[in-house]
């Protein structure tokens, strides 16, 4: 498999596009007619780590996906600050977990997302890249 597309149901495609490109700084991929008869648009973050298919569904009674879409980043706090300033609603400040640093937010239609910066917590050999090395002075 080369590329996967995740469908995201939205009420209004143009409002969704404003959210993704204006606030999350996503880019609009080439128009793809994947779901004939439905208004769709593919968007991706700048690092193109994933592709979302925005699907317009004007009916108010459809069930939004409660699955969380995880957007990978190399700097969670930076993106959290940028998104927050653009008016994105975050559930909380970035939180640490065993995978790294994560910040949860939602779009105007109630879909759930997480920004995830994966961090390697093993005693790593990071220091070759960053002039840094580690004395395990702790436990």
């Amino acid at each position, binding site marked *: 498999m080369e590329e996967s597309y995740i469908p995201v149901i939205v009420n209004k495609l143009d409002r969704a596009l404003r959210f993704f490109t204006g606030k999350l700084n996503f880019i609009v991929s080439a128009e793809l007619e994947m779901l004939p008869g439905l208004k769709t648009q593919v968007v991706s973050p700048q690092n193109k780590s994933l592709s979302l298919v925005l699907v317009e569904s004007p009916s108010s009674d459809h069930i939004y996906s409660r699955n969380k879409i995880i957007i990978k980043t190399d700097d969670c706090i*930076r993106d959290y*600050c940028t998104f927050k300033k653009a008016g994105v609603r975050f559930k909380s400040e970035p939180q640490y977990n065993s995978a790294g640093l994560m910040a949860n937010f939602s779009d105007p239609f109630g879909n759930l997302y997480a920004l995830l910066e994966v961090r390697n917590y093993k005693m790593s050999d*990071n220091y070759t890249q960053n002039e840094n090395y*580690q004395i*395990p002075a*702790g436990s």
Partner: protein
Amino acid sequence: MRITKYLRVLDNRNEIFYEKVTEASDQHVRSKFSIRVVFSGHETYVLGNRQINLYPGSFLVINEDTTYTRIIHSEVPVTSFSITYDPEFLDKFSKSLKSRRSGDVFLPYRTSESEDLILIDSMYTLTGDMEYNIMHLKNHADKGLTDQFMISQYLHHLLLNYCNIYNDQLYSKTSRLHENAKNGVRMDIIKRIAMAKDFIISNHEKNIKLEDISSVACLSVSHLIRIFRLIYNKSPYQYLIQVRLERAKYYLRNSGSSIQEIVNLVGFENPSSFIRSFRTTYSITPGAFRHASLN
């Protein structure tokens, strides 16, 4: 031209300082709370009658109101980076933490509400989130203060990381120490053991004796060993060997020094005891390790 020095002062009066030099000496009187690292070479801090050598891989915390001298005297450039916190920012951080967290998180810095804490200016391992956040912050600060909100978020996270490290590595481990021990007793024990550990790191290349360490900590040898083991899961001697081996690893990777030179630099008695110790700990010989890290 590459920048060799900057001081960034934020609107909230927190400061970020970076410098790459071979010589420096500055005195700080009744300083603010700061977190300090070096990325290459080492810095010496003279704090009263204590002397701390800060190497890459550790971070140093200097508490509020400490008077100290920072000295760099080195053949290779020393890259240092530090964050100094304004007391008001610390106060706000404490309040935000207390309002959001249940349980007793010990906040290891002085604020207007906790002036009587027994604290120690001490080094901690630079690893995990603390390391990631410092590296990210440095990258942002190198570019200037384009986004103060973001920089402040980083400073907030670094404080959070430090509190977690202090609580996990020191405070929680001393809870088993004395039944019903008062907070003052715990803080005092942490202070003494931290002084012992800092002494080991700062003098690892010398022929230090257990008696020297115990006198620095003002503890009997047996008491020192027992509490040191409780906190660091190893004896002071095992800890010393570990510090030497990690320093050796650094030189193997980052210098062209021969094994004999490294043995002298880090304080092993002779190459054979160094090689044996290295191989036992890392399951690889120093030569093979160097070879592997070059490729």
